[in-house]
């Protein structure tokens, strides 16, 4: 097999106490009754370890909404995996964090919605900011990997300097400042979230100066919104190249959003061995090599770097999952992006809907 899976993203539940307007979960969420059991996950993680997967990202929804998070961490470590918990922090207290650390948790990625409490709670659709501040302090006091994650958009990009200062004082080793990517709920709320060109132009030198100033103390990763890029992002570093995602019900996907692609028969970890899914399932092979590529990708020098961009985005914006990602300025359908940017920079209805919680 040419492709070696390195990371497993385990969406262990879609339940979440937050209702973030940019949630990357699908609009159609899995219910609690459909979720994999502890034993199911243990088997899946064991298989992943045997296949050479190195990293486990426990995410959701809110992974702490399950009662067995500690067991899942233990199962990940037993399978030889590096275990990262991606969390809002809601549901964490001193005792539970101690139990997670004792179970072998390597790293926590804690999300913040803003540095201002009022707007942070507004974006999350719940009063969670104060809880997060307490959780950040709890993590700081333990010897464990700690990354802060801040999702940025039109309504909070002006707070960029405050975010960096907050990260600097938080005790985290890393901070990811990531512009919203438009899938799931974020796509639904795109008009309200899309930053302006001026906002982005202002953000880049601030970030670069901070990266230089904080080198060796705090790593800052900045993710730009690809709608403003010249070329598409190398989505997942290639379809079925390095990563896989398992949803709460056990469906195995090449990425977060792949369920939107019509005709993609998503294999289930309940029914198949993970190795078969990775190596042989039609879903993982659909866009793996270059045979699906249209022009201009097929003869483009960049095809081995960005793999034609994101298949889900191509489908969501052009109706064709095998089109060149319209973000690319060379794409035949690039005008779609220009229209979206034009509309977003004009006067549109900027009301949003909140992510719902599946029961």
């Amino acid at each position, binding site marked *: 097999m040419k492709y070696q899976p*390195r*990371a497993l993203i385990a969406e262990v539940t879609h339940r979440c106490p937050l209702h973030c307007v940019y949630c990357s979960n699908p609009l159609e969420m899995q219910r609690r009754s459909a979720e994999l059991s502890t034993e199911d996950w243990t088997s899946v993680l064991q298989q992943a370890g045997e296949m*050479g997967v*190195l*990293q486990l990202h426990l995410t959701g929804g809110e992974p702490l909404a399950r009662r067995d998070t500690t067991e899942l961490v233990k199962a990940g470590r037993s399978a*030889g995996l*590096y275990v*990262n918990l991606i969390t809002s922090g809601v549901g964490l207290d001193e005792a539970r964090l101690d139990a997670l650390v004792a179970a072998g948790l*390597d*790293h926590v990625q804690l999300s913040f919605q803003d540095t201002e409490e009022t707007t942070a709670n507004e974006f999350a659709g719940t009063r969670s900011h104060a809880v997060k501040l307490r959780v950040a302090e709890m993590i700081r006091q333990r*010897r*464990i*990997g*700690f*990354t802060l994650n801040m999702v940025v958009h039109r309504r909070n990009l002006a707070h960029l300097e405050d975010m960096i200062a907050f990260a600097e004082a938080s005790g985290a*080793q*890393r901070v990811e400042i990531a512009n919203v990517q438009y899938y799931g709920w974020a796509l639904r709320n795109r008009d309200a979230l899309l930053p302006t060109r001026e906002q982005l132009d202002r953000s880049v030198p601030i970030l670069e100066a901070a990266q230089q100033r904080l*080198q*060796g103390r705090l*790593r800052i990763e900045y993710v730009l919104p690809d709608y403003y890029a010249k070329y598409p992002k190398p989505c997942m570093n290639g379809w079925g190249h390095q990563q896989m995602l398992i949803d709460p019900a056990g469906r195995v996907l090449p990425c977060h959003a792949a369920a939107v692609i019509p005709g993609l028969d998503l294999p289930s970890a309940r029914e198949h061995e993970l190795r078969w899914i990775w190596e042989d399932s039609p879903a993982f092979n659909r866009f793996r090599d270059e045979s699906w590529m249209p022009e201009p990708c097929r003869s483009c020098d960049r095809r081995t770097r960005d793999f034609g961009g994101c298949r889900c985005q191509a489908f969501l914006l052009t109706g064709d999952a095998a089109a060149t990602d319209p973000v690319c300025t060379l794409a035949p359908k690039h005008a779609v992006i220009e229209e979206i940017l034009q509309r977003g920079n004009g006067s549109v209805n900027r009301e949003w809907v909140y992510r719902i919680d599946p029961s």
Partner: protein
Amino acid sequence: MSDLMGKLAPENVPRLAPGCRLNTAGSPEDLLLIPEGALRLKGPGRAIVELCDGQRSLRQVVEELHRRFPSEDAARIETEVVTFLARLHDRGVLEAV
């Protein structure tokens, strides 16, 4: 002792940063697992990282390697170890107290 990067002094005590650890000993490849992924360790890389236990100073790490590899050129060992650890330090993977 040379002071290649200016950040690691012989009396510094190096250890892995939080969130960074070696993979299980005896795995097919030696890896340093870090939040963003993994770094592949070649040659004596794993042994060097293991010596950075938060007890030994950088000077003691180098001395221990001299003991383990008596036939190797001592100056070369020192240069290579310090360069290697300084690179990990620059990446935020190694702390030096």
